[in-house]
């Protein structure tokens, strides 16, 4: 049986923790709003880009550039795993890593070579345990407060550089799609070869300046950066959403715990008073 002082201490410490989780939840809520607006603001560009690419790609007969049609093999896979830099956000990081891990094991079982590019510290820490040798690079975005296109572009350029050097055949981006505060969907998106739904071919002649091939050659690398950028933004929104609901849960749990501990505290305090009273009364009767 813990003493009254122990119980008091316990309640105080849970209360302090509750304050922290509450504050974190509020911070996450504010950041979420910002991240969500950023993700929504970036959507039109990526969507227009897709339309434009689909328009162009449907007009091209035959293979087209390697970024569109691939290298013709799928021996080496590059997995870009984008996670958060910080923890305490529920299952956010783990669920992305789990999806990536399943893919890695499946690819390895097929006898393919796998390379991993980690964006974000948490994913690196989790993947390092099992696949340290496969990780080719880690991108640290810890100092970045608001992800801008200038953060995503270097990653895209790096990936394209590797592709041109023939270091891999297929690139896939792993991130978490933001659906709502309680639902984030870990997603794998194929970047190279570009996964474009070709619409109906455009009616009439589409004039191109300079030429179709030159435009595609300029557009496709840009598309990679844009897709990575969009993934990172979705990820940022998902992270804050996940943290918000995780911290909300933690706050609620702390509340319950405080309630329980307070009941125990009050009961034992009452029991002590009753005991003392009985002692006094029985002492008086004995006289």
């Amino acid at each position: 049986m813990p003493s009254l002082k122990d119980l008091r201490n316990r309640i105080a410490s849970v209360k302090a923790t509750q304050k922290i989780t509450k504050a974190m939840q509020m911070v996450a809520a504010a950041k979420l709003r910002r991240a969500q607006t950023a993700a929504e603001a970036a959507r039109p560009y990526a969507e227009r880009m897709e339309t434009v690419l689909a328009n162009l790609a449907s007009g091209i007969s035959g293979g087209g550039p390697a970024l569109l049609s691939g290298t013709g093999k799928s021996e080496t896979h590059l997995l870009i795993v984008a996670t958060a830099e910080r923890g305490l956000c529920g299952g956010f990081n783990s669920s992305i890593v789990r999806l990536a891990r399943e893919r890695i094991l499946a690819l390895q079982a097929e006898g393919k070579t796998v390379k991993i590019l980690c964006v974000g510290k948490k994913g690196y820490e989790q993947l390092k345990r099992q696949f340290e040798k496969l990780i080719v690079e880690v991108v640290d975005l810890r100092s970045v407060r608001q992800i801008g296109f200038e953060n995503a572009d270097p990653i895209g350029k790096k990936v394209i550089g590797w592709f041109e050097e023939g270091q891999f055949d297929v690139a896939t981006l792993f991130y978490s799609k933001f659906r709502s505060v309680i639902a984030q969907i870990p997603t794998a998106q194929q970047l190279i070869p570009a996964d474009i739904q070709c619409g109906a071919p455009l009616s009439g002649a589409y004039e191109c300046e300079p030429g179709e091939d030159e435009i595609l050659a300029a557009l496709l690398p840009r598309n990679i950066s844009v897709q990575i950028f969009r993934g990172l933004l979705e990820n940022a929104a998902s992270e804050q959403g996940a943290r918000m609901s995780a911290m909300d849960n933690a706050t609620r749990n702390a509340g319950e715990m405080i309630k329980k501990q307070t009941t125990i505290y009050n009961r034992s305090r009452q029991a002590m008073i009753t005991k003392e009273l009985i002692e006094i009364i029985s002492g008086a009767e004995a006289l």
Partner: protein
Amino acid sequence: MATFHFELVSPEKLLYSGEVEAVVVPGIEGLFTVMKDHAPVMTVLKAGVIEIDEAANKKTKLFVRGGFADVAGSLTILAESAKPLEELNAAQLAQEIQNAEEDLADATSETAKKQASEKIDQLKELQAALAA
């Protein structure tokens, strides 16, 4: 005058969306004006100024740092980055040129070198226009 739909988007956000009368676009092979019912064209942009005619006497000028323009009934410009021309001053432009020159110095492949030197030319042209 007849209007058509125009959209200017940068990776970060939608910068402009609305009905306009005419837009002057700095295409890689020269300036061209898009008006209603323009034939479908797709072109790469060079660094330069976009001029938007919303109505007879209302003009907006924006500086873009390259990108793509897609004309298909409506005009969509995917800009690398864009900002109002008033916000662009000589110092920033000089900075851009310096960046491009650094790119040129760092460039290893032939195509990258060509791209960087083209960019410098475009920016210098713009600098001259701004100074005039």
